[in-house]
């Protein structure tokens, strides 16, 4: 790594590795080691430098989406008592106005460091950072990642993607999201550089930046790939692109084939991958040379990790072609969850073993295929929405709903209310586009003898 080389750039500024280190030190000079910091994560220089500085200085960031509402923010502050906030200045001004003991300590490039006046909560020595499980239902549940989790997963990814200092990723995913963070981590580890933008692939700015700075890769969730297909990715001229990656839900065999073929023709490596926040980010990768041979597969475990399949009685499944729960074992399995400040003292609760909640099978060549889920989740534009939780929240508001459907298309059944109003209300609550929800008012919700909702019957109605 060349210390004077460019580490990151956005639309207006380029910053060398040296300058990144200096700014990180300046920010962290105000923050004692083992403090908890709420970081409103954006793909901007101050946000990413703050993030890297916190990790390097033993300061623990909790990564917040910039869309977090003031009410949700207050709830999280009450649950976790952060000592500091690192956030865009308008956001900080709001807090400073409403919260008497808060003090503005430092500002840089539109970000402000705020001391909250909360005392320092005790934090386990292994805890590196806190990330949400990409759910949009707004609970304070965060995944506890250790320094070993972050380092080992970055190393695995950099290893199988062959990342070198000449690589340059352009951000296409939020920095509050495990997949977005993993791209930053694996590039920084190898002295590679980053083009930072919060613009989506639907924007002219994104493609201009990609071309101007010669980005070599980006990542996307299935919805990104649907958009890329519509943008006629196969006809785009992108000579600097070395690889693209996909995670965050099932891509589907059709799109895997479309992009496998388009990438083969362009000489771009296409990585189909699988992971969860609970495993830091990545658990598997499909080697690009097999992307067209293994349609629908999540591939093989990442370097340093391994998969197991277990049947309902927890017995190991040894033969290919049999469904069982997918278990992952590796150094990137998180310490566990946190729901409040008290949980930050907890040690490792998982011992490197993660029950993914996914049902999978293995083929004769040792490649894995996810075939379903044990719990009821849908992936909505990259956000994991827990259907049981959504139903429970609406039940609390006095509205009984039953949710089924497929990724990016939730079908919601209710017996009362106005379908369109309910649809907009669910969209606004989950902060997802209303077109993702199909609300149907029915006379009666099918229930089983036990009184439990009969989801199989609802699925048949869809």
């Amino acid at each position, binding site marked *: 790594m060349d210390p004077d080389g460019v580490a990151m750039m956005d639309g207006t500024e380029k910053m060398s590795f040296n300058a990144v280190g200096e700014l990180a030190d300046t920010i962290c000079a105000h923050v004692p080691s083992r403090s908890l910091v709420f970081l409103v994560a954006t793909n901007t220089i101050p946000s990413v430098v703050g993030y890297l500085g916190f990790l390097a200085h033993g300061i623990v960031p909790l990564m917040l989406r910039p869309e977090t509402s003031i009410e949700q923010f207050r709830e999280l502050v009450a649950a976790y008592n952060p000592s500091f906030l690192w956030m865009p200045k308008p956001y900080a001004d709001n807090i400073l106005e409403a919260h008497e003991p808060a003090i503005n300590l430092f500002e840089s490039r539109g970000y402000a460091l705020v001391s909250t006046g909360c005392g320092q909560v005790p934090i386990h020595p292994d805890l590196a950072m806190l990330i949400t499980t990409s759910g949009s239902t707004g609970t304070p549940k965060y995944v506890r990642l250790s320094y070993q989790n972050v380092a080992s997963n970055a190393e695995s990814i950099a290893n199988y993607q062959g990342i070198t200092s000449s690589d340059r990723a352009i951000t296409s995913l939020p920095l509050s999201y495990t997949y977005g963070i993993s791209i930053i981590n694996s590039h920084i580890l190898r002295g590679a550089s980053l083009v930072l933008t919060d613009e989506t692939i*639907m924007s002219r700015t994104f493609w201009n930046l990609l071309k101007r700075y010669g980005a070599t890769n980006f990542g996307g969730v299935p919805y990104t790939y649907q958009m890329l297909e519509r943008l006629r990715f196969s006809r785009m001229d992108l000579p600097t692109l070395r690889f693209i990656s996909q995670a965050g839900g099932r891509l589907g065999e059709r799109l895997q084939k479309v992009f496998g073929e388009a990438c083969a023709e362009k000489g771009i490596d296409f990585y189909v991958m699988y992971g969860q926040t609970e495993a830091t980010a990545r658990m598997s990768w499909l080697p690009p040379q097999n992307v067209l041979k293994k349609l629908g597969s999540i591939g093989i475990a990442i370097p340093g990790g391994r998969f197991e399949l277990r049947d309902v009685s927890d017995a190991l499944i040894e033969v290919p072609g049999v469904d069982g729960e997918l278990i992952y074992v590796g150094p990137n399995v998180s310490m566990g969850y946190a729901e409040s400040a008290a949980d930050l003292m907890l040690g490792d609760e998982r011992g490197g073993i993660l029950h993914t909640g996914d049902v999978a099978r293995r083929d004769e060549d040792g490649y894995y295929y996810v075939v379903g889920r044990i719990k009821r989740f849908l992936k909505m534009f990259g956000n994991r929405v827990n259907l049981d939780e959504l139903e429970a929240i609406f039940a609390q508001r006095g509205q009984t709903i039953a949710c089924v459907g497929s990724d990016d298309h939730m079908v919601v059944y209710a017996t009362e209310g106005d379908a369109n109003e309910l649809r907009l209300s669910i969209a606004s609550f989950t902060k997802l586009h209303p077109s993702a929800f199909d609300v149907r008012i029915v006379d009666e919700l099918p229930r089983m003898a036990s009184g439990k909702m009969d989801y199989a019957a609802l699925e048949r109605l869809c």
Partner: protein
Amino acid sequence: MTNAEKYDWAFMEALELTEDQLGPELTFESVETWDSVGHMGLIAELEDAFDIMMETDDIIDFSSYSEGRRTLAANYGVEF
């Protein structure tokens, strides 16, 4: 339906808008439903309505109600 009606219908369908919300003030992200997700739906509606396949640059530069009409007229022979 005239082409102008088809055009308006695509906006109302894809972006969940009413007729009075359409016009020169309507631009990308000026309403909540016209985000990147809504944009894909809108392009799909327009491509179906006019039986066209839009180019990458035209999809990306389709940044307002008025701009879109100009693009369809200039590059896809849609007469308004």
